[in-house]
């Protein structure tokens, strides 16, 4: 039982409250979805239920009371709430404390001091269940986003809490992985677990939902029962900034030769284009991770790079941008580019954009990136179109996630780079922002750049991509690699 009564909450240093006068009562065994646009307060409402709000944020202001399984959340320690709730945060890979499924599922039970026999039995049961869908002996960081999610749910529910809280569990998941997620949640619901999900995507939960709570500006705007929700048309969802059915993008396949391509073509069928890769082979940690005989990407087009984790998407991005050594050549407009030259010609918009903001103001960030390249668009125009002009004096780290991402896009545009790679740019964004990200990607392509879009988000790919190249992991001994260069082994770049 969860009871939230008259709760308002303001994060430390925030200029407006994240939650306003919230009233919500969730009965045992219910499946409730909190939804709303980014910034509507749905994640904050979820964090009320495990005590992270207010206990994890010093100096925030909370009024009202939250009661979970009879405990007032401000009166007890976080781990007492953790014992009765399981939480899966938005990025499963960031919350793993160990590096394999067995230790991860044992973690909570060990800490809560369960008897050893019970831990063993719980871990065995969970691993047996997971093993049907997840290679459980693999290291967690090497699993796909969907598999990591399955492990995170198992790790959050192994100590048998009566409540499960999930923050945007479907972001970064492919349509397949989303179906598996729904099946797992359905099993948990059948076991009587109360489930609360904060989400933008709703349709995949259609058959599980008991209630939908739509939030806006920190307050509840609409509540739908299961029957009402099923009758809501897709354009009504769109008005609330919610994503409806997942669109399956139908993209033309980019003709590509090599063992890494899921659907390889003969090398002769690969047409010439602005960016050409010839004989690219890369071995990391004793394994061939990428083998592309021939691939070509056109300027002014957006090519989606798809494929499971470990298929070589990040490695491909690192090779093209000159960050990773490999055998083979990369040509831009017919000229062979060295690794250094590629670094100067390309840009990446990373998944965590904080990693690439280096200065103390938006204006300084833009000035640092600006070049005298005649092709580069005008700075003022770029700032204006990306809605950043009024933020010129702000510190980049004080911007919201969406603003930071737009700032990085602005730096990419004013630097006039010819090769631009987006790495999972849409993780956890709502429908409105998704459109704006797609527009930015399109705009960079329209500036004349070769754009590669690494993403699992079918909605984004449907909006922003022209073609697709799907990579597949190379089985041992499959690649005809010879004379390969070996670079320094890097930990796998983080992609979901």
């Amino acid at each position, binding site marked *: 039982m969860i009871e939230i009564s008259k709760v308002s909450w303001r994060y430390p240093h925030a200029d407006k409250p994240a939650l306003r006068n919230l009233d919500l009562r969730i009965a045992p065994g219910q499946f409730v979805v909190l939804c709303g646009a980014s910034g509507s307060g749905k994640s904050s409402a979820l964090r009320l239920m495990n005590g992270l709000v207010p206990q994890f944020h010093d100096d925030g202001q909370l009024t009202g009371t939250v009661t979970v399984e009879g405990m007032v959340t401000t009166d007890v320690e976080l781990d007492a709430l953790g014992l009765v709730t399981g939480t899966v*945060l938005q990025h499963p890979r960031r*919350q793993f*404390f160990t590096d394999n499924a067995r230790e991860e599922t044992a973690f909570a*039970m060990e800490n809560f001091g369960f008897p050893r026999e019970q831990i063993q039995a719980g871990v065995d049961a969970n691993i047996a269940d997971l093993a049907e869908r997840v290679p459980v002996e693999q290291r967690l960081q090497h699993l796909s986003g969907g598999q990591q999610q399955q492990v995170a749910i198992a790790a959050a529910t192994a100590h048998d809490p009566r409540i499960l809280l999930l923050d945007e569990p479907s972001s970064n998941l492919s349509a397949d992985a989303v179906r598996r997620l729904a099946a797992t949640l359905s099993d948990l619901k059948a076991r009587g677990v109360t489930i609360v999900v904060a989400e933008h995507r709703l349709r995949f939960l259609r058959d599980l939902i008991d209630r939908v709570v739509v939030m806006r500006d920190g307050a509840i705007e609409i509540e739908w029962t299961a029957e009402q929700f099923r009758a809501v048309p897709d354009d009504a969802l769109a008005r609330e900034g919610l994503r409806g059915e997942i669109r399956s993008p139908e993209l033309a396949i980019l003709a590509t030769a090599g063992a890494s391509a899921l659907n390889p073509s003969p090398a002769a069928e690969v047409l010439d284009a602005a960016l050409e890769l010839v004989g690219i082979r890369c071995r990391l940690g004793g394994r061939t991770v990428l083998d592309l005989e021939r691939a070509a990407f056109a300027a002014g087009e957006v090519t989606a790079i798809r494929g499971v984790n470990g298929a070589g998407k990040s490695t491909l991005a690192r090779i093209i941008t000159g960050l990773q050594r490999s055998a083979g050549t990369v040509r831009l407009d017919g000229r062979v580019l060295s690794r250094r030259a590629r*670094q100067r010609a390309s840009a*990446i918009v990373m998944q965590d954009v904080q990693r*690439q903001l280096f200065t103390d103001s938006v204006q300084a960030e833009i000035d640092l990136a600006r070049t005298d390249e005649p092709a580069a668009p005008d700075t003022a125009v770029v700032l204006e179109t990306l809605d950043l002009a009024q933020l010129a004096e702000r510190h980049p780290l004080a911007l919201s996630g969406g603003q930071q991402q737009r700032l990085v896009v602005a730096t990419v545009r004013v630097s006039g780079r010819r090769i631009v790679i987006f790495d999972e740019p849409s993780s956890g964004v709502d429908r409105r922002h998704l459109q704006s990200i797609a527009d930015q990607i399109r705009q960079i392509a329209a500036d004349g750049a070769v754009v590669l879009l690494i993403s699992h988000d079918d909605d984004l790919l449907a909006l922003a991509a022209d073609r697709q190249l799907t990579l597949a992991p190379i089985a041992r001994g499959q690649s005809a690699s010879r004379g390969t260069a070996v670079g320094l*082994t890097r*930990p796998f770049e*983080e992609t979901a």
Partner: protein
Amino acid sequence: MPEIAAAAVARRGLDPRSKILLVLLVSLAVMSPGGLLFVPAGVVLAIALALSERAWSRIVVIPVAAVVMYLLGWVLPLLWTNPVVTVVAIGCGYLIRFVAAFGVGAHLIATTSPTQLSAALHAWRLPRAISVTLAVMLRFFPVVAAESAAVLDAMRLRGLAGATGLARHPILSMERFTVPMIAASLRASEDLSASAILRGLGSRHVPVSLDPPRFGWPDLMLVLALATVAAASLLLPNPLTTVIA
């Protein structure tokens, strides 16, 4: 699946308590006055440990670093005497001790999961505050390493990572690296600590380990190896403490 096999081998290796004791012992031996006597033994141990877990990069880096330090610290001053060389030589005389200490420490970090570490510390009845802090630190190393690598990549693409830039504006370059690195690491650690606390890390309950640490034959081998290299250090001639004529 080489990495899985390697991980499984490592997990069946030394007891985490042995590894902690070994790191303390080696550090103490090589850092103490007269510690140069034990540096070759420490380097040999570090290489042997790297071999045992098949950490190829360390198998190469440790001996190369040791040899470079030796050449700069002992051989070069004999061939070429000038103040700069002397300063470098004195520096290398100290740094070579770190090669041994870091080499052994790297094995501990690479092969011990946070769960194993807390189990080991719990077995020693260390206070929770210490065991939880150390376990979190151990978990945090790879986060910082991954974030640093990503920030460096981003700097390279923006042309901010060049040696000329570093030489001309050292403070600015450091700032451009550290600020995003710390911001990104903090963000990554927030989810990690929220999830760990909710799952009872550091709670009042007495933790129970699913796999309590046990000493086994690898630990016995380690004791024998330690005795051997200690004896060798004392009996055999040492290039670091004998003056080259």
